[in-house]
């Protein structure tokens, strides 16, 4: 029953599944422990944006590697398209201040050698999105970005990992981890599991695992809401964001419109529940109808929330533990980990297999918060 394994992965979200999959590809025997079911929280219910646009400078090399090496080739890798649509992503500028900010951003990226975000003027915006409100003055365009279907990605990674022999145990909450000699030990209601390596991808609960491994971090769980409308005739291809206000917006091919973008709500991490509160969403509704006045009378079909881990500087922790040996952390993606997840699995597996990553991950060190 408790066959030995080389690595224990705590958490069956996308970061954990991707890490387990990449470790298995490198010949490791992996056991993944998931408290509920894979993709239950942020990984399965997020907006699904495959977005390099607008990222923190430190994340850009990872985001580009994920997009170019993995997202555009997921079908070959996992045997499933994951619903990936390279629709492009557009961040609109609604006034002069927005435009100035957008042009500065593009120039900054160019000075670092990145050309994946480019300025498009009002005319080009209208070519990309003919139905957009005339007040839009331009935007930043990332043509190889897009979106995918989150739970389908979760399932594709889970099945691919299982095909490579990863032992995935759902409804198996890790209550405590400890280092015993040369092994990590994870205690669960269904028994105790041991392995030399520990991967902490526990999402909104990762700070507890990190603390038990001797690596306390200032991570906070939080809820993130999304809403989806009834079906409407196709009117927008790319995923949209806005320079001046929080928005993430896309239309699926079934006609429904997904509205999100940093809409925080309370999260009860202990109860593993984030109650949706629609009374917090009027601003998002207003943004949408400002940009697309024809949506005024469209009904909201549903709203929901996922629980995510947030870091004070809003970039994740990716890297080895500081206190104990043979532990790798990947958490605290602060609501933008979906696009990174395929490459995070490669980084985690490389850190374990080769002791290093070819990608720059210095900015994501766990001990950056140490006083």
């Amino acid at each position: 029953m408790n066959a030995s394994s080389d690595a224990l992965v705590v958490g069956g979200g996308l970061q954990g599944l991707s890490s387990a999959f990449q470790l298995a590809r490198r010949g490791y025997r992996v056991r993944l422990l998931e408290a509920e079911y894979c993709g239950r929280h942020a990984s399965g219910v997020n907006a699904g944006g495959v977005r390099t646009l607008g990222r923190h400078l430190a994340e850009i090399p990872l985001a580009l590697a994920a997009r170019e090496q993995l997202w555009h080739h997921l079908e070959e890798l996992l045997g499933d398209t994951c619903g990936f649509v390279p629709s492009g992503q557009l961040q609109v500028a609604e006034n002069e201040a927005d435009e100035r900010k957008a042009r500065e951003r593009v120039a900054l990226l160019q000075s670092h050698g990145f050309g994946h975000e480019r300025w498009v003027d009002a005319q080009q915006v209208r070519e990309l999105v003919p139905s957009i409100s005339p007040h839009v003055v331009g935007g930043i365009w990332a043509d190889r970005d897009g979106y995918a279907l989150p739970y389908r990605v979760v399932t594709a990674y889970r099945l691919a990992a299982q095909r490579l022999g990863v032992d995935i145990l759902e409804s198996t909450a890790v209550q405590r981890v400890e280092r015993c000699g040369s092994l990590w030990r994870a205690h669960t209601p269904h028994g105790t599991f041991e392995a030399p390596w520990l991967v902490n991808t526990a999402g909104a609960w990762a700070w507890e695992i990190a603390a038990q491994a001797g690596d306390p971090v200032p991570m906070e769980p939080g809820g993130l809401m999304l809403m989806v409308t009834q079906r409407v005739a196709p009117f927008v291809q790319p995923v949209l964001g806005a320079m001046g206000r929080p928005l993430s917006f896309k239309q699926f091919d079934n006609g429904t419109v997904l509205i999100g973008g940093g809409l925080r709500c309370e999260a009860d991490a202990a109860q593993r529940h984030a109650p949706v509160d629609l009374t917090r969403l009027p601003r998002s509704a207003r943004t949408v109808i400002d940009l697309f006045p024809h949506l005024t009378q469209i009904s909201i079909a549903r709203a929901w929330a996922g629980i995510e881990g947030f870091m004070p500087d809003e970039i994740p922790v990716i890297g080895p533990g500081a206190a104990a040996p043979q532990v790798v952390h990947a958490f605290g993606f602060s609501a933008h980990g979906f696009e990174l997840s395929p490459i995070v699995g490669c980084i985690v597996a490389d850190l374990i297999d080769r002791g290093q990553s070819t990608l720059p991950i210095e900015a994501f060190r766990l001990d950056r918060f140490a006083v």
Partner: protein
Amino acid sequence: MSDSIRDLIVIGAGPAGMAAALAARRRGLDVLLLDEQPDVGGQIYRSITTTDAQRQRILGPDYSHGETLAQAVKAAGVEHWPGTAVWQVDTDKTVHALRGGANHHIAAKALVIATGAMERPFPVPGWTLPGVMTAGAGQILLKNAALVPSAPVVLAGCGPLLYLLAAQYLRAGVKIQAILDTADGTDWRLAIRHATALLAGWGYVRKGLGLLREIKAAGVPFHQGVEQLRIEGAGADAAEAVAFTRRGQAHRIACGLVLLHQGVVPNNQVTWSLRARHHWDDKQLSWVPTCDDWGQTSLPGIYVAGDGAGIGGALVAELQGELAGIAVANALGQGTCQDGEAQRARIRQHLAIRPFLNQQYRPRDAFRIPADEVIVCRCEEVTAGSIRAQVALGCSGPNQTKSFSRCGMGPCQGRQCGLTVTEVIAQATGLPPSDVGYYRIRPPLKSLTLAQLASE
């Protein structure tokens, strides 16, 4: 718009909601009664205040009973907001509702949720075709607008409402081509076991027999033991015929309008959205919120009364509403403290017939847990086969079917597929429905446009 804090908000103005509001108001509480309809009455007494004598004759004496209650509510000074849709309820007892295009956020010390029943899904091949509707929808058209079908109809299914609608249609001069009874068929040995209950609930039995007599006297062909029911017409994109087998014999009746019904189940959308505790009722084959003997849910100060607490019918609903109203008054120290025993005794008397009715009208497994090709989620067109395939991929509950296939994520918020999805997964996994669980219900509970939300 924010309003002052109320003693009690009652959601739903059917018999349970009206009785709860009345009981609390009579004990001096400040009561707000919210309902979507233009007037009080709920589904059972829909349009009760505006129905003329002719339509009252068609609808029958049970319907007219609602008028007394409706008048008492109006006379007692209950504040009633008609045309009000509740789209979110918070555990702190704040109710968010849309009335005349404006949003209201109203806080209360207690809530009574009296959202009644909804029809059990009846997923058979062809049930989504134009020309197929539910008997409940047929009755709403009759009550609201005195609309009856002009072409002959076939009624198929089981349960008292089906026979009631048949009798009402006959009184209104509608031609009924046939009634197809899909219940498992009366097992008289079982009926004898329920003999005491039958005697106790003789009023209900007499009414049922009366309806059947009325239908028989009209000469309507009545087929019992109907199996393998399906509606044909997929090629024409509208119902053309009903096909079924009976004692192994195949039958087919050409018709353009089919009314389906196999009983009603509690409408638990509000209590599910509040994450109140629910349990699976094996007799009623549905979820029921877990309540104390006043109707209080697992959330203090939040009560459920009426069919939403388990199907009991209009008179039980009224008594449960009264109990909940008394409980709220007791909790707020208003009026003389009462123990509710008199109401409970009468509820027990009315419920005595239920085990027999549950047995008599138990929908067949095949009509609740359909074959692979049958659509389960009509909004997103997800079939039973697709759900079974998802189970094979590791899906263990209704919330994963949403993520896998959008099943239950359409405009009806899973109302029309939730029970079917639970039972299909239970059958495929071999787990009891109580372990499979139900959808997490999220706001908006009722349709809300972007403009309405933005106007906050």
